[in-house]
């Protein structure tokens, strides 16, 4: 078992350059099991670039991403073999995309979507896969009778909940989320946030969530990083950052949300 005071993820001096243009620069932080880190900023602030680099989807120009693996101890994710890294990404990690279509297979049933990760790690018992998928459907508040339906027949909120179930079925310890409530109606957003908050708590998930929505960040995250022009300009406990922002840019962000 990982000890709670040992970091699950350590990011050290991460820099992503696109030629002369800065994607993100000199970002360092640690994340512990069960901890939720919000990364906020406007579009173009580098938060999505940072998320891609941390989640092994885009190798950074500089810096290190280390993860406390279940069996191999601490590993630099970009030093792992591609096979090991892809295995990590579909077992102990999860990635929830803003658009559920990017995270779901639209041409197979909800059950097959949830079962895919189980089959990818060698589960070969149809009955077990199906009952596992059914149970996950329940956990994300989708009725059992939708198990064999295609995701294209689901509402946007249901698709997003299905994407979450599909990701969590292998009991990952670290979940990356990119604007998970973006594009949803306000009432649908609220329900999804409630659900996410419950799952994060019950499953003791570590989460890195990228959002431009400070209300989402406040509701879900323990800590906040504020990004501007590729750099982290403020980093602290969520309540502190939002109630007593130090950096002028953060103050501007917070006041603009208060005015809305």
């Amino acid at each position, binding site marked *: 078992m990982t000890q709670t005071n040992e970091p699950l993820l350590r990011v050290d001096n991460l820099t992503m350059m696109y030629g002369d243009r800065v994607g993100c620069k000199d970002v360092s932080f640690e994340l512990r099991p069960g901890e939720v880190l919000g990364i906020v900023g406007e579009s173009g602030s580098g938060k999505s670039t940072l998320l891609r680099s941390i989640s092994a989807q885009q190798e950074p120009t500089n810096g290190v991403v280390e993860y406390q693996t279940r069996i191999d101890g601490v590993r630099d994710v970009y030093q792992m073999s*591609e*096979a090991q890294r*892809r295995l990590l990404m579909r077992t102990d990690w999860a990635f929830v995309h803003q658009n559920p279509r990017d995270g779901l*297979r639209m*041409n*197979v*049933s909800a*059950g*097959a979507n949830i*079962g*895919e*990760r189980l*089959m*990818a*790690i060698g589960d*070969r*018992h*149809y*009955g077990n*896969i*199906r009952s596992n998928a059914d149970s996950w459907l329940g956990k994300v508040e989708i009725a059992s009778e939708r*198990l*064999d339906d295609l995701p294209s027949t689901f509402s946007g909120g249901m698709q997003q909940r299905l994407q979450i179930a599909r990701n969590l079925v292998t009991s990952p310890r670290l979940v990356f989320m990119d604007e998970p409530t973006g594009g949803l109606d306000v009432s649908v957003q609220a329900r999804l946030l409630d659900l996410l908050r419950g799952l994060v708590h019950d499953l003791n998930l570590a989460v890195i969530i990228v959002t431009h929505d400070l209300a989402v960040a406040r509701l879900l995250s323990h800590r906040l990083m504020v990004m501007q022009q590729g750099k982290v300009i403020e980093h602290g406990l969520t309540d502190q950052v939002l109630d007593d922002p130090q950096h002028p840019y953060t103050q501007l962000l917070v006041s603009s949300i208060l005015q809305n």
Partner: protein
Amino acid sequence: MEQIVKNPADGASAYNFAYLDEQTKRMIRRALLKAVAIPGYQVPFAGREMPMPYGWGTGGVQVTAAVIGPNDTLKVIDQGADDTTNAVSIRQFFAKTAKVATTEKTAEASIIQTRHRIPEKELREDQVLVYQVPIPEPLRFLEPRETETRKMHALEEYGLMHVKLYEDIARHGHIATTYAYPVMVDDRYVMDPSPTPKFDNPKMNDMAALQLFGAGREKRIYALPPYTKVKSLDFEDHPFEVQTWEDECGMCGARDSYLDEVILDDKGNRMFVCSDTDYCAERQEAGHRGPQHHDQPLGTSKREEAAE
């Protein structure tokens, strides 16, 4: 069978031996050698245009052209039958361009080119089975990106194949895939035996003959060397099963062969008959009789209907 012929024996012929030029044949043979060395792995090759449409199996024709020698005896089957237009045309093509002997008898052939079926009669070490393949990539159904499917093969990420089978069971209550049923080759590569019926999958396993697969449109070659382990994918609680028939062959009474349903007239009368014409004929010659056998051969036109 494989004798390299420098030049076509018949100088009057407008074609090189077996149509393809020697350089192209060597290129295909190199791809074949690589394919044999890595069973089930899809080897790209610079496929040539052949004087026939892709649907006629230009991949298989190119493979046959690359391995055939003047002393070979060629059999060509389409849906198990030697007498369909496709089979006859390919047989004539090689009779003309390579002047090889042709046969309809499985036992007499050194090379058998097929579109769908594997002959019922057990093949031998001195025989080669050449498949015409329309779609070589088994992962294509769920993953359209070629870069991604290549990576999946390289890293043995085959969970998607079971997603397809899962979906089958969820929709139909059983694995409804009957053709192009995916197999694991030598515990390493997942391969599509398309468009062979799953009835023939067990014959691929541990077969004495060399099996070569050519996909013309997608320009891929793959192979199963003799005695390769070939296992059909399945679930523990939904094991692989081959098709079975309640009926026997109406002509020869066979109960162990792949049967086609043949419509006899417009009154709805039908019968079942072996799809492997040579197997059926041989059994009839040996005196086996099915319930519809009236000591008259079944018309060719009906057989072609069944092959559609």
